[in-house]
């Protein structure tokens, strides 16, 4: 009885503490824990905002089984950096209507943030941002990926992303005929 009562009290205290805390704890697929500003998480991720509002945040670490520790670290890093940078109204509104409004260029720190990532880390981060409904991060990462393609030939793009050419010779010839203007031969 004593134990149970104590447990109940502890549960109560924990819940109160959880509500008061200004960070949330996230747990990666491989069991690592990360703390992130609650305000930034709610502002930048529609999924986390929903979880916070719905009270489904676990103090011992909310399980994010789809996201590996490296990607989650980057997500958390991005949120915390975002919390520290002054959020401009324009930035927030552009991330909401990103499909119609012209893309707002990445800010200097966002550019640096994605520039230091390896190709694989970038891949994982795009997936994580997509899973967590982080539109601005998705925009910034997809912009970075597009930057890696601009001005490059299909061969060069395949080289950058280590993609196997799965077209047959005939199909490629057909494409080159159809889009002759875009293919220069000596």
């Amino acid at each position, binding site marked *: 009885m004593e134990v149970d009562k104590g447990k109940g009290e502890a549960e109560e205290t924990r819940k109160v503490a959880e509500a008061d805390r200004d960070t949330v704890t996230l747990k990666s697929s491989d069991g690592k824990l990360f703390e992130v500003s609650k305000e930034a998480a709610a502002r930048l991720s529609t999924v986390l905002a929903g979880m916070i509002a719905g009270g489904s945040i676990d103090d011992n670490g909310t399980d994010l089984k789809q996201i590996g520790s490296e990607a989650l670290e980057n997500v958390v890093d991005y949120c915390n950096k975002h919390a520290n940078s002054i959020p401009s109204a324009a930035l927030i509104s552009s991330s909401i209507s990103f*499909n119609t409004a*012209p*893309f707002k260029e990445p800010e200097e720190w966002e550019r640096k943030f994605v*520039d*230091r*990532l*390896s*190709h*694989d880390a*970038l*891949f*994982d981060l*795009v*997936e994580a941002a*997509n899973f967590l409904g982080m539109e601005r991060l*998705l*925009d910034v990462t*997809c*912009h970075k*990926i*597009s*930057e*890696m*393609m*601009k*001005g*490059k*030939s*299909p061969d060069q*793009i*395949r080289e950058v*992303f*280590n*993609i*196997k*050419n*799965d*077209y047959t010779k005939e199909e*490629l010839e057909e*494409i080159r005929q159809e*889009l*002759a*203007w*875009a*293919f*220069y*031969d000596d």
Partner: protein
Amino acid sequence: MARRRKPCRDWSTGLPPELLGLVLHHLPCLIDRVYFACVCRAWRSAAKDEAPPRQLPWLVMPSPGKTSFFAQQTGCTHHLRLPEGIRGARLCGSHDGGWVAAAGEAWGGYAAVNIISGVQVPLPNRISFFHPFTVRGNGCRCKHPMLLRTVTFSAAPTSANCIAAAHIASVCNIAFCRPGMDEHWLTLSQELRAIEDIIYCRSLPQQGFYALRDTEDLVVYAAANAVAISNKSTPLVMSFVHHRFEKRVDYSLNRPGSSVSRYLVESRGKLLMVLREYSMRAMKRCTRVFRIFEMAEALPHGQAKASWVELHELQGRALFLGRGSSRAVEVSQFSGLQEGVIYYLDDACFDISLVVGSGGKFSSSDMGLYSMAMNKRLTRGEAGRFPRRFASECSPPLWLPI
């Protein structure tokens, strides 16, 4: 910088199509989209669902060897494979959808060619005009060679109601034809006043070809038999209306050592006249100032003349200036554009000796960006990667609307 480790993730099929679609949204240039789709099947099928992006006019830099184009939206220069018939030709006009007018020779070989599809439509090489004095004493229609300066199209050259207007050097200076239909260019009465620019206006109350004279008056040409022009057996008849303008206060302002060139641009349902002042320095043109005027219709209370009203800013627009092919674009609809900027080429005057002389070299050095807000040419640093000079054996550069 990204580490130079070979990626292990499956970039081809590992990303869901909606994420590939998002990446595509960040590729505003058509050629990047084409190359994206060529990478692998999965990327091609993701690209299929995306509407092609609106393009800013490409700056085509023709050369008998490798032709290239500069895309303002990305700041990248790409090779452009021209259809065989026009490699080494002089390009002297363009139209929406990748159309150019080409001159294969100095005095002929004229054609409208689509750079994207490769479709070619022949244009006549000679004008037909009425000669009032002949040996027999009565006038007759004569055929005469002509030199194409600039061609403007009213519609895609393959469409049945397309009319081409040519600014020419011959016994007159303006001529019309239906591409692929007429054997000769039609001329009207001998038009001898200097023409500065000819454009086709769609959104003005009076549709037609607007020709700007050096007096800053306009002549508007339209088909007199608009309904019948798609019928080959009906000859093309053009009618025209003169619009006289009240002289601007500083019209005759011709400062020593300074010349003026004028362009027409249609924008937001209005007609703009762009004034370009330049001087010659060591045989090279050097643009100093641009000024912009908007056509104001004649006032209702008895004033018969229209007038040019100066605009001091472009109000959210940018201009791509080129003889017969200028266009205004809304800056908010494109990435990579600077507001209030005029993108200009070295076409302030037409050098006939380059075209008729053999072995001439088309050399452009007076091209760049001009900011209306700052009232100055942008420096190399401010203008990004826009080409500052271009030289070719066959043709000056040209704006190509895609």
